[in-house]
């Protein structure tokens, strides 16, 4: 980059912009064929995530009837789409912008394109197969992927990190993180932070670059909005999909119990308070939708820019978005 004079120019080439348009068209065809309804929900909303590891950006809206209201740019369309599901929408998808403060790097931009979809009446394993199919279909023009691998979180941690994620003591996890090739000062890191670090350092680099790897049965402590496994409640119906070490998608067998959901949100709020982070309100419209009844469903969010990056063989998100944050 050659300083200020070039900053009006896009960082993505024309080819990337054309491929983005083509991939969006194929994505819409994929869901049209499967009769999943495309929807739009607000990007700017009074309710947002309380997830400890996500930082929503906010704005104040002043308009007739809405005086000085604090509104949040969505970190994903999850809350609003679940309200549609509770209202009887049936299976839906959305491709839109999402925003996450504090996230900038090779494959992160604070503003990015997210694809999120929900399958009513599906269990999580059926959705996992559809996620692999979607990735394979959208990448078919540039690379032929081998059949997807499905493997549990615990198996991967045992195999590549030598750690049993349920049984390992916190001391053993600290040691493993501190002794890694890129050591970390582990003070202030909790069990899940340590597991997450080990997974990133020891497991993700082992994923094959020529196939989708679907990781399922995450620890219950990392359930986020997934329901716990009925057969083993130490794990949750949460999965992630990768190609190589690029994390593409995160999905759940969705938690439907409003009481359990409220407890998790309160727990998140308590953790946020403890670290001095901003405290958005408890999302009451979302909880009311759950009270009224979320149909059994599975849902997933996928980073569209990263998928396009794989399609183009790009080395960073900057090669596939017209204007990353520094030029926006």
């Amino acid at each position: 980059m050659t300083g200020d004079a070039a900053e009006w120019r896009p960082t993505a080439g024309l080819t990337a912009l054309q491929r983005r348009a083509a991939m969006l068209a194929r994505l819409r065809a994929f869901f049209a064929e499967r009769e999943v309804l495309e929807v739009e929900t607000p990007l700017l909303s009074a309710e947002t995530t309380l997830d400890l590891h996500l930082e929503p950006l906010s704005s104040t809206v002043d308009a007739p009837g809405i005086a000085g209201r604090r509104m949040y740019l969505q970190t994903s369309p999850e809350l609003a789409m679940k309200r549609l599901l509770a209202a009887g929408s049936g299976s839906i998808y959305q491709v839109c912008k999402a925003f996450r403060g504090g996230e900038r790097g090779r494959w992160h931009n604070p503003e990015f394109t997210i694809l999120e979809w929900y399958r009513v009446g599906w269990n999580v394993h059926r959705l996992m197969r559809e996620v692999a199919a979607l990735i394979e279909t959208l990448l078919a023009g540039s690379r032929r992927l081998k059949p997807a691998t499905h493997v549990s979180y615990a198996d991967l941690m045992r195999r590549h990190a030598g750690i049993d994620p349920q049984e390992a003591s916190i001391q053993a996890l600290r040691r493993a993180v501190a002794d890694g090739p890129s050591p970390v000062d582990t003070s202030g890191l909790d069990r899940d932070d340590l597991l997450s670090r080990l997974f990133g350092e020891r497991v993700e680099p082992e994923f094959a670059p020529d196939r989708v790897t679907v990781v399922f049965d995450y620890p219950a402590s990392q359930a986020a909005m997934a329901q716990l496994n009925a057969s083993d409640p130490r794990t949750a119906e949460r999965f992630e999909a990768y190609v190589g070490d690029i994390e593409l998608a995160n999905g759940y067998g969705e938690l439907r119990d409003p009481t359990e959901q409220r407890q998790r949100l309160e727990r998140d709020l308590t953790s946020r308070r403890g670290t001095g982070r901003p405290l958005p309100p408890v999302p009451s419209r979302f909880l009311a939708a759950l009270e009224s009844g979320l149909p059994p469903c599975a849902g997933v969010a996928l980073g569209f820019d990263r998928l396009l990056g794989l399609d183009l063989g790009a080395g960073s998100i900057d090669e596939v978005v017209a204007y990353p944050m520094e030029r926006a």
Partner: protein
Amino acid sequence: MASYNMNQVRTGLKVLENGEPNVIISCDFIKPGKGQAFTRVKMRNLLNGRVNEKTYKPGDLLEGADVIETSMQYLYADGEHWFFMNPDTYDQVEADAAALGGAEQWIKEEDVCNVTLWNGHPILVAAPNFVTREVVETDPGLKGDTSSGGSKPAKLETGAVVKVPLFIQTGESIRVDTRTGEYVSRGKT
């Protein structure tokens, strides 16, 4: 010195790690969708050249190192130290053999060298990329002999030994690339 948080670290920044000055050569932001963010930092130790990698949490801080690179004129050596002068302020510094790291075999009084100072003390001295030096010793008997690949060793006035073409004789000046230690051409006479 200032401290840097993880939103401020970038390539080229000079920082202290275990009390020693390092230059950051890469930093990667790592963040799973649902999990703790980390920054993986690769840095080169400016004292010993070793590359190390460490990973930091968002709240971690790196302490800045007072490291500057500056052009200084080589004055003389006393057998133990090499003395350099800032041509603007006339301030003098003395560098040890570790900081010279081989540059001593190229440099000659009045050469302008790139000197890296940490807290004002030289930790790295780079000879000028190209120098013209007199050959003080080379074997004349090798003239015409092509069995050694057309080159022969020649000792320079500053101590370095370089391979030179067979036609170079003692007393001639040659131009050398100090980064590779290779002969470039005959020097201007």
